[in-house]
């Protein structure tokens, strides 16, 4: 357990010092800032669509660090050294997902508070939006690590990662958008269930991809 925490801590440190954190957060806030320029200062329209825009921005923000999640560790031999010490690829993937959740989730939720203020989201919707994102972020972290493991070392990995990730996030996006309706309970439950399933399965898919990529 101590070793697992050490690996998660390393992931968080790498995310915070290597640009894997602030780039997505800046991107996320940039979207929130630019959106009112496109729609105009129509408060009612912003309030109606702002939550959905923040959902899409969060989804796209998770794409940005994909190349940093697996490839550097594969190239530098860190993954080999972990395997040598008896770490299963699934456990390494789980640590990376946990690290991504810790490093990315809290800052993104804080950025959501700022972003919703920039868009002018009603205060009543902010809580629902934060809860929905908090439920979805573990699944987004799982998907991003899985895609990173699948595409590590491939040419055009970023573009390919985007092509793979976006369709897989559609259920999260649909249920996430559903939570912004007047009665969010059913959508919230479905979002939680979907997120749980993706989060639970992604370490196995990512682990298999890590194993297949070992040369």
């Amino acid at each position, binding site marked *: 357990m*101590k070793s697992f925490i050490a690996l998660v801590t390393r992931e968080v440190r790498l995310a915070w010092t290597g640009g894997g954190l602030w780039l997505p957060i800046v991107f996320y806030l940039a979207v929130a800032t630019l959106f009112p320029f496109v729609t105009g200062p129509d408060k009612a329209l912003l309030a109606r669509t702002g939550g959905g825009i923040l959902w899409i921005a969060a989804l796209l923000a998770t794409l940005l660090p994909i190349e940093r999640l697996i490839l550097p560790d594969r190239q*530098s*031999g860190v993954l*080999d050294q972990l395997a*040598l*010490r008896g770490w299963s690829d699934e456990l390494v993937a789980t640590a990376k997902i946990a690290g991504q959740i810790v490093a990315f989730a809290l800052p993104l939720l804080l950025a959501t508070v700022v972003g919703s203020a920039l868009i002018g989201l009603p205060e009543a919707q902010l809580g629902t939006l934060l809860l929905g994102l908090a439920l979805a972020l573990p699944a987004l972290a799982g998907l991003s690590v899985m895609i990173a493991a699948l595409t590590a070392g491939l040419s055009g990995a970023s573009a390919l990662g985007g092509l793979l990730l976006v369709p897989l996030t559609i259920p999260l996006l649909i249920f996430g958008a559903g939570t912004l309706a007047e009665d969010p309970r059913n959508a919230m439950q479905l979002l939680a269930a979907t997120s749980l399933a993706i989060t639970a399965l992604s370490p196995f898919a990512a682990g298999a991809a890590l194993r297949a990529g070992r040369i």
Partner: protein
Amino acid sequence: MSSRQASLPSLSLENVAVIRGNRLVLRNLTVTARAGDIIWIRGANGCGKSTLLRLVAGLLTVTSGAVKAEGRIALADESLALDANVTVEHALQFWADLDGASASERSAALADMDLQGLAKIPVRFLSTGQRKRASIARVLASKAEIWLLDEPYNGLDSASCARLDQAITSRAASGGIVFVAAHQPPSINVAHSLVLDNQGVAA
């Protein structure tokens, strides 16, 4: 006496064959190593030296044959496996913590490779030879009984080579097994010299 013998490291490869990328890299390879052995693996480029070490490390699977290893294994190959943006000390500490090595063992590994003066320097600022020494220090701090060193002398100056020789000799003398894949003969006494020909067969 018997329990002591049971804890000694050993390593054996029996009729091992490995195919990589549709190429038969190793075939009919049988090697046995016991505690205290230093084995020099040599052969031309591409003959399978690194493949053999990765196989022993468990990073590759055999196509046929069997690999049996008793004891913890440490590998130093061309990959540094140290985070570039942290200091040498912190980069080594990460692995030493995973290996259960104490702070004194970590300091001793740094001292053995003459890295104390570079301990506070970020890894990315190290020269090629210094990186190699840091990579070997990771192995020294691992407390592993079986060392797999792939071209460990590349980039090292003569003083560092002597330090490495000393470390290898000490590890073998304390009951470890050391595999050294290198083109140049080590200046230490080796138990066996395993020569791989271009077909990956021990000659």
